[in-house]
């Protein structure tokens, strides 16, 4: 290759030139042409890598992983009214998905009922509209919530929507102690990336710790938070930033709960995570592995004793932002690759995007193919026959270490800024993300980065993908349903429950029991959230580019 003894990062020489001058991961980590035992010679197998199901959990959170049980196939779904989405859930279950995942429309995400003025034009467009317990009843009608777990992507009003779910189960005679699922409930990443926040940081964190407390005592099989990196990545961050900012958020939640007086081992086992599966195949795998090891280390430092408290269990979704509107069928290939990286990275649960999602919500056919993608990986690829098959790869172990190093660098920077919330107020995360997003776009525009079908291998053919059509009468039906609900309920009890909630919100009691009471009285989402808005105020973000 080269002169003896001379180390080189590249296999290039005059006779064998390389295609580029620089090879990097999407995070900008420079890559050599070859990784060898020398690159991981300092690693101690027992201390640094270990065995799945044991500290530091690098190779997997369970001792049997997919040999014991496959990941949950959980397709994020929701649109229009509860009736339509209920049909889609039944379709997906019929076709083999093993867990449910609810997408809500924008008004619901912001705690507004369908008939609120700000809901104009938004009903059911990017998720299902849920304005009350009645809607939740319809959403899960004919579905065995005692036998299947449900993940709900809801943040600002998470406590209220969770209460809808709990109340619905209880009304059907199902004990809250046996229902299982997840609420996303991760407000920090809202400020950083997804922007569906409602209240300012302090009251939002209070509500979240309320759910931790309530969950650990009353709904023990529920993951009361899904600490998310998916959205941070979608907003344009690199893989390293996704990793660092997500785990940083997670540690912040732990600190707040401990400050409240909760015992770390009481709530930590029910913290879960949600990552993106983006394009750089091995970087994503290294990211998941590094996440497990860092989380275990940090929780140990914070005093967690139970092994279950150290587990970084996660759901993954393939990267929406990599889907193209051009030649949409090839998105199936992208999703397959991304899904494979999540599986090789040891995910507990997986959503695969549909090929038409750069254009609209998925049609039945598109989402079925997305589900089949997971099923082929599970049944036909053989990758589930052994655990962490890439363990020991010189490249992957080196990259895992490197990503851990870069993560700790970010932890230091955030510490110096005073912690996560001060850093959010200073716009630190938002600026890092905006910079990374701009860089990515510029590289694409300047043809330094290629996206097949967009700036390379373009075609002029018209796109012929059937776009999901929703029931046009849905919004009107929903508004009428709300009118009827407000008339038919016991309004005296409703008023009483709402004012008791207001009083409790002004104090510092756990709000979950009060919210549940309101929900049982058929208070709507908007009415309940409205009280909290009045007491807590609304958050306004700084303008960061």
């Amino acid at each position, binding site marked *: 290759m080269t002169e003896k003894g001379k180390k080189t990062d590249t296999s290039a020489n005059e006779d064998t030139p390389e295609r580029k001058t620089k090879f990097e991961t999407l995070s900008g980590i420079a890559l050599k042409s070859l990784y060898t035992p020398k690159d991981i010679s300092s690693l101690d197998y027992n201390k640094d890598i270990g065995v799945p199901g044991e500290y530091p959990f690098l190779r997997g959170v369970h001792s049997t992983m997919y040999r014991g049980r496959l990941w949950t196939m959980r397709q994020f779904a929701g649109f229009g009214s509860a009736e339509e989405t209920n049909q889609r859930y039944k379709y997906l279950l019929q076709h083999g998905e093993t867990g449910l995942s609810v997408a809500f429309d*924008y*008004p619901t*995400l*912001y705690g*507004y009922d369908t008939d609120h003025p*700000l*809901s*104009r*034009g*938004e009903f059911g*467009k*990017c998720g299902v509209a849920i304005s009350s317990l009645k809607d939740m009843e319809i959403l899960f009608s004919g579905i065995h919530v005692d036998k299947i777990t449900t993940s709900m992507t809801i943040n600002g009003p998470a406590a209220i929507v969770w209460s809808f779910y709990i109340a619905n189960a209880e009304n059907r005679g199902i004990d809250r102690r046996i229902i299982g699922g997840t609420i996303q409930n991760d407000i920090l990443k809202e400020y950083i990336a*997804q*922007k*569906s926040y409602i209240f300012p940081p302090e009251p939002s964190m209070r509500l979240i710790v309320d759910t931790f407390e309530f969950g650990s005592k009353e709904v023990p099989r529920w993951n009361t938070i899904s600490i998310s990196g998916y959205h941070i990545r*979608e*907003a*344009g961050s690199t893989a390293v930033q996704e990793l660092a900012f997500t785990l940083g958020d997670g540690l912040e939640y732990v600190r707040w709960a401990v400050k409240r007086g909760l015992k770390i081992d009481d709530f930590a086992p029910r913290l879960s995570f949600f990552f993106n599966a983006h394009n750089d195949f091995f970087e994503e795998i290294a990211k998941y592995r590094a996440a497990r090891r860092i989380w275990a280390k940090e929780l140990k430092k914070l005093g967690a004793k139970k092994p279950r408290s150290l587990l970084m269990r996660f759901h993954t979704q393939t990267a929406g*932002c990599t*889907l*193209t*509107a*051009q030649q949409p069928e090839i998105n199936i290939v992208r999703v397959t690759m991304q899904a494979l990286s999540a599986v090789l990275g040891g995910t507990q649960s997986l959503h695969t995007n549909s090929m038409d999602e*750069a*254009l*609209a*919500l998925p049609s039945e056919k598109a989402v079925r193919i997305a589900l089949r993608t997971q099923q082929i990986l599970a049944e036909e690829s053989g990758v589930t026959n052994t655990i962490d098959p890439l363990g020991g790869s010189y490249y992957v172990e080196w990259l895992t270490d490197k990503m851990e190093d870069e993560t700790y660098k970010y932890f230091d920077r955030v510490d110096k800024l005073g912690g996560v919330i001060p850093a959010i107020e200073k716009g630190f995360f938002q600026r890092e993300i*905006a910079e990374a*997003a*701009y860089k990515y*776009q*510029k590289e*694409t*525009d300047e043809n330094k980065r290629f*996206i097949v*079908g*967009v*700036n390379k291998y373009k075609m002029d053919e*018209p*796109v012929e993908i059937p*776009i999901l059509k929703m029931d046009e009468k849905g919004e009107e039906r929903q508004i009428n349903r709300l009118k009827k609900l407000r008339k038919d309920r016991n309004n005296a009890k409703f008023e009483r429950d709402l004012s008791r909630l207001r009083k409790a919100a002004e104090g510092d009691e756990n709000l979950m029991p009060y919210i549940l009471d309101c929900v049982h009285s058929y208070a709507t989402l908007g009415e309940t959230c409205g009280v909290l808005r009045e007491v807590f105020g609304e958050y306004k*973000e700084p*303008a*960061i*580019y």
Partner: protein
Amino acid sequence: MEKKIRVLVAKPGLDGHDRGAKIVARALRDAGMEVIYTGLHQTADMIVETAVQEDVDVIGLSLLSGAHMTLFRDVTKLLKEKGMGDVLVVGGGIIPEEDVPALKKAGISGCFGPGTTCEEIVDFIKKNVKR
């Protein structure tokens, strides 16, 4: 003195996805334009009032939540009522091809969906600005 093109970049409705809007704002700035960014959760009233006070030449509406048919047309309707037809209005985000003709008819001169380059948007504005 050279006149600057003033552009209002707005996020109508509840959609919180601002990655694209912010990138476009930067690109327009780099192309020599003055860009006013409204922030999130703007109603049509607020967008048009801001356009009036800032005397903008262009309004760029960014939306990824699917509510574009209602909210974009609310804006163009209001602009028409106020006699502000000389403001160039463009839209971006998730806009299916089949919705584009109706939007064009309502006054959205250009629709920029996924895969659009910043250069395309800059060129379009420079070529089509009316004032």
